[in-house]
C-alpha cells in the first residue's frame, strides 16, 4: 500500500518537474525572442537612420537659403543622436565600432555648431562646405556597408543572440557573417551613392483636417446596384452574381463600398466611394507572365485608362518597372501647373497590358477647384534663389504642400549636383526655398553583389 502511495507521489513529482521545466523553457524562449526583437529593431533602425542621415546631408549641399539650412542642421543633429543610440543598443561591446561612432559624433558636432549659430550673419564658409561634402561621402560609404550587412543578415536569417554568444566565446571560431560584415563596415570601402528621401511629396501631409474630399462631398449616394455595375465594368467581367459587396463601418473616414470577385484566373478587389461611386482602390491579383510590352507602351495603356475613368488632364509623372509590372504615377495638371497632391497611381501587367491596380485616394482626398494666381516671381528670377552649384536642367510650375500643410505655388527646378539629382521648389510669390529633395529610385541589387 505504502509503496503504491510512494509510486504515485514520485510519479506526480516527476510529471510536475517536467511541466515546470517545460514552462521555464517556454519562458526562456519568449524572453530570447523579446531580446532578439530589441536588437533587430535597433539594427534596422540604425540602417534607416544612416540612410536618412546621408540623404539629409546631401540635401544641405543643394540648399541655398539659410532659412531652410538651420532646421535642416537640427534634423541631421537629431538623426545622429538617434543613430548613436541605436549603435549603443546593439551587443557590440567587444567589437571595434569606433569609426562609425566617431563619424556620428563628428556630424553631430558640426551640425550642432552650425544650427545654433546665426547663419544670416555668419553663413557657411567654403571650408565648412568641404567638411560637409566629406561627411556626406563618408556617411554614404558606411551606409552602403551597413545595408550590405543588413541584406546578408536577412538573407541568412542571422540572429543577434548568436552574435552575442559568438562574441562571448571568442575562442570558438564560428562563421558569423554579422560580425564579419560589421568589421568591413569599419574599413572604409569605396561606396556608391544611391539614395532615399523620407518625406514623399505626393499626398502631402495627408492630415485629414486639411483634406476634405471636396470633390465627392456634393455627390449623391450610389446604390449597391450601381456600385455592382461599376465594379463589373472595372473587373472586366459579365458575371455580376460572382461579385460580393460590403459596406464600410463607423471607423471609415468616408463611407465606402468594398467589392471583390474571384474566378480561376484572377482575384479582384475594389473600394469605391458611396458618394459619387468613384473607384478609390483597385487591385487585381493574378500571376504575371514574361514581359511582352515595354514600360512606355504600358504608360499609354495607363493613360488611356485614366482618361476613360474621366479623371481629366492628368499627366504622367513617374514610371518604374518592378519585375514584370509597370508602376505609374499621374499628376493633375491645371493650365500648365502640376498639382502634387492630386495624384493617381496605376499598375500595369507588362505581359498583356492589363491594368492590375489603381489608387485615387490622394486625388479624391485633395482635388478641388483652385484659382491659381500668376507667379509674382518669374522663372529667371526664381533661378537666382537656387544654389548656384546646382546645374538646372528642367523647370515646371507646381503646387505643393509646404511644411505647414498649406498649398503654395512654386517654381520647380530639376537640377544636378555631383552625381545626384535634386528637385528644388522656390515659392513663386516670395522666393522662399520651400523644399529640396534628393531623388533616388534605384539601388544596387545586393543580391547581385553576393
Amino acid at each position, binding site marked *: 500500500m505504502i509503496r503504491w502511495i510512494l509510486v504515485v507521489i514520485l510519479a506526480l513529482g516527476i510529471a510536475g518537474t517536467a511541466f515546470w521545466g517545460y514552462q521555464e523553457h517556454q519562458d526562456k524562449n519568449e524572453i530570447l525572442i523579446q531580446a532578439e526583437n530589441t536588437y533587430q529593431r535597433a539594427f534596422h533602425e540604425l540602417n534607416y537612420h544612416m540612410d536618412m542621415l546621408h540623404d539629409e546631408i546631401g540635401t544641405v549641399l543643394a540648399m541655398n537659403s539659410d532659412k531652410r539650412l538651420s532646421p535642416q542642421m537640427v534634423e541631421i543633429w537629431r538623426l545622429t543622436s538617434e543613430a548613436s543610440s541605436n549603435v549603443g543598443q546593439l551587443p557590440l561591446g567587444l567589437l571595434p565600432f569606433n569609426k562609425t561612432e566617431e563619424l556620428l559624433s563628428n556630424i553631430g558636432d558640426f551640425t550642432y555648431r552650425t544650427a545654433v549659430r546665426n547663419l544670416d550673419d555668419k553663413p557657411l564658409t567654403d571650408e565648412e562646405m568641404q567638411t560637409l561634402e566629406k561627411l556626406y561621402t563618408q556617411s554614404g560609404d558606411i551606409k552602403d556597408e551597413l545595408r550590405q550587412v543588413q*541584406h546578408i543578415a536577412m538573407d541568412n536569417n542571422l540572429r543577434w543572440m548568436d552574435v552575442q554568444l559568438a562574441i562571448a566565446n571568442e575562442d570558438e571560431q564560428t562563421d558569423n557573417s554579422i560580425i564579419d560584415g560589421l568589421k568591413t563596415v569599419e574599413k572604409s570601402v569605396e561606396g556608391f551613392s544611391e539614395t532615399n528621401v523620407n518625406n514623399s511629396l505626393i499626398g502631402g501631409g495627408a492630415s485629414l483636417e486639411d483634406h476634405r474630399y471636396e470633390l465627392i462631398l456634393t455627390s449623391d449616394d450610389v446604390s449597391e446596384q450601381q456600385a455592382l455595375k461599376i465594379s463589373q465594368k472595372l473587373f472586366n467581367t459579365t458575371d455580376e452574381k460572382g461579385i460580393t459587396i460590403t459596406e464600410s463601418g463607423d471607423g471609415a473616414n468616408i463611407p465606402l463600398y468594398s467589392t471583390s470577385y474571384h474566378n480561376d484566373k484572377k482575384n479582384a478587389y475594389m473600394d469605391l466611394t458611396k458618394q459619387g461611386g468613384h473607384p478609390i482602390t483597385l487591385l487585381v491579383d493574378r500571376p504575371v507572365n514574361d514581359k511582352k510590352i515595354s514600360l512606355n507602351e504600358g504608360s499609354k495603356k495607363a493613360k488611356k485608362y485614366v482618361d476613360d475613368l474621366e479623371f481629366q488632364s492628368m499627366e504622367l509623372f513617374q514610371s518604374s518597372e518592378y519585375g514584370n509590372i509597370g508602376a505609374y504615377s499621374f499628376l493633375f495638371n491645371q493650365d500648365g501647373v502640376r498639382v502634387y497632391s492630386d495624384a493617381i497611381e496605376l499598375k500595369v501587367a507588362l505581359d498583356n497590358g492589363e491594368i492590375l491596380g489603381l489608387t485615387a485616394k490622394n486625388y479624391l482626398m485633395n482635388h478641388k477647384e483652385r484659382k491659381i494666381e500668376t507667379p509674382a516671381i518669374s522663372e529667371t528670377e526664381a533661378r537666382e534663389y537656387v544654389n548656384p552649384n546646382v546645374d538646372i536642367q528642367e523647370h515646371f510650375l507646381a503646387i505643393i504642400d509646404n511644411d505647414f500643410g498649406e498649398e503654395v505655388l512654386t517654381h520647380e527646378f530639376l537640377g544636378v549636383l555631383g552625381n545626384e*539629382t535634386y528637385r528644388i521648389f522656390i515659392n513663386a510669390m516670395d522666393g522662399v526655398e520651400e523644399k529640396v529633395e534628393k531623388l533616388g529610385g534605384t539601388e544596387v541589387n545586393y543580391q547581385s553583389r553576393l
Partner: protein
Amino acid sequence: MKNKTVSLLFIMGCLLVIGFGSIYQPNTSKAFSPQVIQQGAVGDDVIELQARLQYLGFYNGKIDGVFGWGTYWGLRNFQYEFGLEIDGLAGQTTKDKLVKASKYDEAFVKEQIAQGRKFTHYGGVEKEKQAAPTTTPKKETGANKTAPTTNVTSVNVPQGFSQNDIQLMANAVYGEARGEPYEGQVAVAAVILNRVESASFPNTVAGVIFEPRAFTAVADGQIWLTPNERAREAVIDAINGWDPSANALYYFNPDTATSGWIWSRPQIKQIGKHIFCK
C-alpha cells in the same frame, strides 16, 4: 510654272529619300529592340543605352541596366547636342542617331557585368583601362541562389525605401497574413505605413514592426519565415500608395483576438479574416 515643277520634283525626291530611309532604318539600329525606352525601364536595352551614352561621354554613372536620373539627363543632353527633340525618351529617331554616333561592344559589357567588375565604356579608351581587375573572387557558397538570368545589377525602389526595408516589411506581412487574400496583405502593409505616419507610433518601419506586443508574428518569431514574392509585391503596392485598409491603424482576427479593448475601436472593414479599425 517651271518653278512649280522643280519644287514638285524636289518634294518627290525628298519623299523618296525619306522612304528609303525608313526602309533601311531597321538595319541601322537592330541592336536595340523596337521599344521606346523611358525612365524607370529595366533591361538589356537600358544597358545598351547607357553604354552608348557613355561612349559619347554623356553618361558617367554605372552601367547597371536601370534607367534612372543619370541616364535621363545623359539622354536629354545627347538629344540637345544632336538637335533632336528633347523629351528624355529613347524613341526610334533617337536610337538611330545614337547607333550611328557610337559603338557598343556588347560582349565586353556583358562579360564585365557577369564578372561583377567595375568598368566603363568610354569611346577612344583602351578596354584594358576600362575594366578594373576583379578584386574579390565570387564566393561559391552552397547558399547561393540560382544564377542570375539577368545582366541588370541595380533595381528600382520606391523613393525613400531600400530593398532591405521592403524585405523587412515583406517578412512582417508574410508572418502576419500569409493565408490572406492579396488585398488583405496589401492592407497589412498599409497599416504598418499608416503607423509610421501616425504620431502615436514609432517613426520608422523597423520601430513599428518591432514595437513590443504590436504584432503577434514578431512576438512568436514567425516573422523570420522566408516571405514569398507575393508578400513583397504587396509591400511595394502599399508603399506606392495602395491602402485597402482605408487608413486603418489596427487590425485583428476576431476568432483569436483575446483583448476586449480591440473590439472597442471603430471598425472600418473586414478583409479575409482580419477586421481593420482606427
